[in-house]
């Protein structure tokens, strides 16, 4: 029976298409882009204001007018109007003796009820970047599709930040060595650091002090999540939390593209969001479109898979057999399994649930057909 495991894309060259979307409550601001346009990773493709808190301002109370109708006549703004802090909302009198009611916030007038003005205050402005260099495939007021070519490495966790920067591997002395460098002339300044070993809070503090553009590591302690979320540069974990062995393929891929700039999108994982933390290294494709990663392939003999649970975590191997009957595994559970040949030629039995595919294209996928 075909089994469809999860997929984490780790590919040397693929066509990457991503949707960038404004949050649903954002009011779009005009951005001058068109479909077909070439964009950089940092090109702002969408912008908008996030309005949140409502403020009720009573014009009658402000001017001490009891009759709502009379107070309403003083209102100078209309429903739907965008306003800025300090902007006049209502005025009584003329000339030097005039008294004005000013907006305490930036925002939008959402409703005028008798003599009351209800404003939704702007909480923040969002600007959404393309995040991968490429071409805008489609453009809508709230969403765009951007596509490019490159190496793609999907990660396990990110802290919500983004950078498009060159990257370097951590020096042999690790973060201790990095801490000894003069930040003004350090070659690691404004560069994303790739650490093949798990990182600590001390390492992140060094990275912050050295003004790096980001950190990629296999794992870190889970109690550093909050701290990492406060950092202004991306932190990407390729494996997860705790002491995790790096997936060799990921670090080989990063090594082989050293010197290039890459998009480090440390999206916070959310099972219900399309965004996944990932690294995209833009690469030329020689005039041909590389294949799109396959997302819903069944596991089959010959497939390259990654083991995502102990024992054997992070190892990549090839499926050599798919036994019909469930197998008893180390936990004592009896589960549908695959026999996986590791690079050292050893064959291990792994539950199908603990394997993931790497996005290799085998044939047209059903998801592609649907979209």
């Amino acid at each position, binding site marked *: *029976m075909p089994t469809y495991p999860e997929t984490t894309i780790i590919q040397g060259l693929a066509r990457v298409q991503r949707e960038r979307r404004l949050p649903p409550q954002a009011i779009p601001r005009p951005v001058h882009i068109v479909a077909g346009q070439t964009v950089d990773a940092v090109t702002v493709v969408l912008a908008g204001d996030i309005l949140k808190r409502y403020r009720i301002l009573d014009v009658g109370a402000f001017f001490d007018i009891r009759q709502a109708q009379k107070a309403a006549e003083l209102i100078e703004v209309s429903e739907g109007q965008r306003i800025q802090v300090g902007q006049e909302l209502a005025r009584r009198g003329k000339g030097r003796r005039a008294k004005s009611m000013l907006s305490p916030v930036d925002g939008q007038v959402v409703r005028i009820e008798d003599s009351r003005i209800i404003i939704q205050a702007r909480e923040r402005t969002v600007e959404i970047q393309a995040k991968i260099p490429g071409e805008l495939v489609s453009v809508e007021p709230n969403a765009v599709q951007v596509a490019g070519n490159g190496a793609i490495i999907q990660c396990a966790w990110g802290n919500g930040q983004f950078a498009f920067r060159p990257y370097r591997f951590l020096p042999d002395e690790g973060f201790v060595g990095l801490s000894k460098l003069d930040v003004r002339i350090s070659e690691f300044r404004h560069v994303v650091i790739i650490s093949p070993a798990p990182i600590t809070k001390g390492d992140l503090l060094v990275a912050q002090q050295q003004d790096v553009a980001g950190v990629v590591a296999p794992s870190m302690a889970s109690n550093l*999540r909050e701290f990492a979320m406060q950092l202004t540069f991306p932190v990407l974990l390729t494996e997860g939390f*705790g002491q995790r062995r790096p997936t060799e393929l990921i670090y080989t891929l990063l090594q082989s593209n050293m010197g290039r700039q890459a998009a480090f999108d440390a999206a916070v994982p959310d099972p*219900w969001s399309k965004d996944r933390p990932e690294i995209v290294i833009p690469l030329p494709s020689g005039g041909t479109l590389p294949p799109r990663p396959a997302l819903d392939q069944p596991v089959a003999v010959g497939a390259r898979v990654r083991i995502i*649970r102990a024992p054997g975590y992070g190892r990549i191997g090839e499926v050599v057999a798919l036994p019909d009957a*469930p197998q008893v595994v180390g936990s*004592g559970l009896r589960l549908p399994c695959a026999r996986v040949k590791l690079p050292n030629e050893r064959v291990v039995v792994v539950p199908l649930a*603990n394997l993931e595919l790497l996005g290799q294209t085998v044939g047209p996928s059903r998801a592609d057909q649907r979209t």
Partner: protein
Amino acid sequence: MAFEHVNSLLVADIGNVHTRLVLIDVVEGQYRLIATSRALTTAAPPLSHVGLGVERAADTMARQIGRGLLSLEADQMFIMPEAGGHGVDEFLATSSAGRPMRVFLVGLTPEISIASGRRALAGTYVTLTDTLSTDDLRSEEQKINAILRDEPDLILIVGGTDDGADDILLDLVKTVQKSLLLLTRGKMPVVLFAGNRALKRQVDDLLSPVTEVYSARNVRPTLADEQIFPAQIELSLVYDDYRTKSPGGFVEIGRHSQVGVVPTAQGLISAVRYLSHLPQKGVGPLVADIGSANSALVAGIKREPHFTIRTDLGMGHSLASALEAITPENVQRWLPFEISVDEMWEYAYNKELRPATVPGTAEELMLEQAFAREILRLLVADARDDWGLGQGDLLPAFRPIIAAGSILTEAQHPGIAALLLLDALQPVGVTELQADPYNLLSSLGVVAFLKPIITVQALEAPGLVNLGTAFSPLGRIQYGQDVMYVQARLADGQIVNHTVRGGEIWMVPALPGDPVELAVKLRGGLTISGRRRFKLKVTAGAAGVIFDGRGRPLVLPRPRDRAARFMQWQLAMMGQRGGPPPSPDAGALLPSLEDLYPTPEEAADANLS
């Protein structure tokens, strides 16, 4: 097709990790579970279409039984109705997948109407964002922000007895109306009104120009009377609507089902309501379901379902929030090895990142089973007030206790599944333990509304797996002292005598399905169902017949004795006595789940023969 003409029925239960399919059909005049299958759920991005998972499970099932199920026609998912040995007459779907519905609750008083509203909401997958009642001292501006801040999907309005005072509740409704009128972007929440019936029309007039308004009978028609069932039925319609409007392809799946996509918990509640009305011993049934994102405990007490659903307790998507609720210190009590608090958190966060994965080592499995025990204990603690139990009171005599969710039903041995239930729930007296590995119960709960005979017959056999009958004496037990003298006459006439000692669990070595005649005598001061001596004939389950001499409440061993005692219990429940602890790969020596749980096909065959 009208349901009375339905012979074959395909039911999908779409969980957050797995989509399970069960096929029920008529075999020699009786509705029987014919086949089951499952696939990974495909609701989440990048696939975002639950239909793919359902199709895959259906494809697997079709190959198993050689019966075509999937239609080639573009607008039809399944071959319906059944013809020529292919297809099915009807399809139904339940689901617990996806983000819980965010609900803002409005009511007159926190103690009465808000409390009833909360109980009504406990029947589906919701996150309560905030509440508003008459004693709320916040300003109008603050109230409006409270309503809209967390972008609720539903505003539930309850309050007032039927034909009672109306002005105060109407003021609250007007605040809701004002708030909704301010929404110019994003998703407009729907409203469910389940308050004073005299206000229904006015509420409708105020709110239906702004949003979609559902209504249900008052949850508190009188001060003394609480009726949350009609509100729950309406809530399940609202949930179906919410699901169909959410990404994930639920709308397409719902289109093929006569009743849309019903919350799995609602199916369980219906099933327990149905089971509660069957002739029974004990208080009524208890269903414990631990999923990846949500967990539920549904009890039948006085023929009415009482339930607790927690969207923050689960073994996958919600494991970190579950660990926060159950605390690492409590989990540690169930582990025969040391693990640091940090390691526990790391396990939980990693499981959240990859919720579909399974334990790879014996230690990981023990850790997950320890989480499950504590989740169940917390669910019971939550339910205590509702069940009318005081602190320290033992579990009422629920019969049967039914386990659902992979962590409980897919243990390394049925005996371990039974042990998890005994450890976490600590039943007293005689308890039938059952497992629902195919999530049949929620499906049959939905079917019970449409054609009860299907539920009646499909539940009889072989849908639920009988784990076994457990005997747990009430009274003070000392470790090592004699507790029970058991004489068991097995099906082959062999007589087994055993003295169960304090701290021991003993399993009668009987084959699943075999009748066992028991004669039990308890030590002075101990009773089972109020008796010191009794004779009883029971059917051995997949975990035999269980005698739990560990006492109630269960006193866990000291840390230094923990490893040895846990190992004794585990071995006893796997039909092995004593001996050294198993090595990490001891699993290879254990009997398989399939050897002990008959497949539905085998069970159906056995039933027919």
